[in-house]
């Protein structure tokens, strides 16, 4: 695998994670539990869509085949998406949505902080911008975990159920393969070890304050990074890509 191939794959992974999660969050727009929260959640979706666009644009540049952000988002098939399964799971109740955001943010922040030191200037620049957004996202998703965990009996039960269900999808966040190996060697992406440590520390601290139990690290789902997804992704893409597929070559 050349460095260019690895970098292209890496940008797709980062882009797809953000793209698919922002899509899920955008499904809440107009349906949030309180008007103020609706606005906040949409801000989160907008931050993620911005990050996705940065990565997909860069992926197109790295690949060098003139593919735009929209070509990559709208004209790839299910097996070509490289996001983790965690982000494609349906929203579930609000506790599920928040718990997913929290787990994602707790991984995403240390990852992007480390990427600020990337030997690749573009990746470093994308990370520098994203870190500000994710710092706020992690703070607010953590605050909500604490509110739910230490709120009412019902919210505690829902938050714990969400964590228990989503936990098996967190293993994928820390998987590494040849793509990472090539780029780590070149100083372009960070080692996963310290990121996992930061994730563990943050999750433990928040769950402790939330009086929630950290699920045991048992079986972990895998496959997303190789394009082997849940059945949910196909439906999401069918909806998301519908216009581009129905009217090939049209401008919007």
């Amino acid at each position, binding site marked *: 695998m050349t460095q260019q191939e690895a970098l292209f794959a890496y940008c797709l992974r980062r882009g797809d994670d953000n793209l698919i999660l922002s899509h899920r969050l955008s499904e809440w727009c107009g349906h949030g539990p309180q008007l103020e929260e609706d606005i906040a959640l949409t801000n989160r979706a907008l931050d993620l869509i911005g990050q996705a*666009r940065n990565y997909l644009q860069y992926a197109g540049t790295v690949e060098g085949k003139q593919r735009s952000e929209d070509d990559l988002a709208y004209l790839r098939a299910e097996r070509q998406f490289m996001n983790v399964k965690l982000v494609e799971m349906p929203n579930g109740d609000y506790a599920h949505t928040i718990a997913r955001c929290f787990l994602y943010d707790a991984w995403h922040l240390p990852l992007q902080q480390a990427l600020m030191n990337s030997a690749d200037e573009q990746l470093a620049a994308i990370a520098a911008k994203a870190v500000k957004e994710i710092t706020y996202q992690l703070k607010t998703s953590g605050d909500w975990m604490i509110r739910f965990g230490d709120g*009412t009996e019902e*919210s505690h039960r829902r938050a714990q159920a969400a964590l228990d269900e989503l936990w098996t999808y967190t293993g994928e966040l820390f998987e590494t393969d040849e793509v990472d190996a090539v780029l780590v060697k070149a100083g372009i992406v960070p080692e996963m070890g310290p990121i996992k440590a930061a994730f563990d520390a943050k999750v433990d601290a928040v769950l402790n304050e939330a009086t929630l139990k950290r699920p045991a690290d048992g079986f972990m789902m895998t496959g997303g990074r190789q394009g082997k997804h849940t059945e949910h992704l196909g439906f999401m893409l069918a909806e998301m890509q519908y216009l581009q597929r129905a*009217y090939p070559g049209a401008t*919007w």
Partner: protein
Amino acid sequence: MTDVKNLEELFQAKVDGELKIEPKDWMPDGYRKNLVRQISQHAHSEVVGMLPEGNWITRAPNLRRKAILLAKIQDEAGHGLYLYSAVETLGTTREKTVDDLLGGKAKYSSIFNYPTLTWADIGAVGWLVDGAAIMNQVMLCRTSYGPYARAMVRICKEESFHQRQGYEIMSVLSKGTPEQREMAQDALNRWWWPSLMMFGPSDANSPHSAQSMKWKIKRQSNDELRQTFIDRTVQQAEVIGLKVPDPKLKWNESTQHYDSGEIDWTEFNNVVAGNGPCNKERLAARNKAHDDGAWVREAAMAYAAKKAKRKAA
């Protein structure tokens, strides 16, 4: 003690002198009720209005359009919020106002009971529906009630990109493939008349209009605003090569306005009465969001109470 008649005269003198009425000022009961009714209807329209556009967020044709649409719908939520806040200054809580909507007691703009069937509808909604709304909103920046006027100033500032993004969508479609063109024309055909209805009944049949004008809640009549909207929009349609679906539409040299056909008020009254294509869906969606959110709101309050108690201890 000043009697009510005297107070009413003083109040009207303030209004006539273009002094803004502020929350703690004495105001006639009718003025307060009229405002609560109008502002809350306006707020509900913003919030219910998120739904027909939200219908296309997950199918937006590219990432730029998706981000724009999200930001726009988010603005509508914000506008609903500013307006609910203005209602609260009149002594009616958001809870009460929202309950009236959820229970089907309160009205909102009927336009949002129409479905968004194709992507071009997102263009048409921005261009026509927001365009019509802006006409009203610009007028309301000068409304006599201070908090309402201030909310409207903020809303108008934010709203200005909404109409432009809608017109841009229509313009791109009308320059696109034959199918896209057809989509754009079809959307204009379906949204034109409902947009004209947004200005409300003609002045002769508008129950609240005269009093609202006297109190300077409204500053221009329904028909005046509608005419300005028609004049501007017909020109914009021409620029992008779309045809306004009114065979009677004709420039009138002597009035310097467009003459236009009759609005089908039977359809309007039907939709207002709850028989529009999407009345039930819209209300059901708002109720579901509210009901599903109950435990979230409760949890946040429970946690806030615990935290405050711990801090005090």
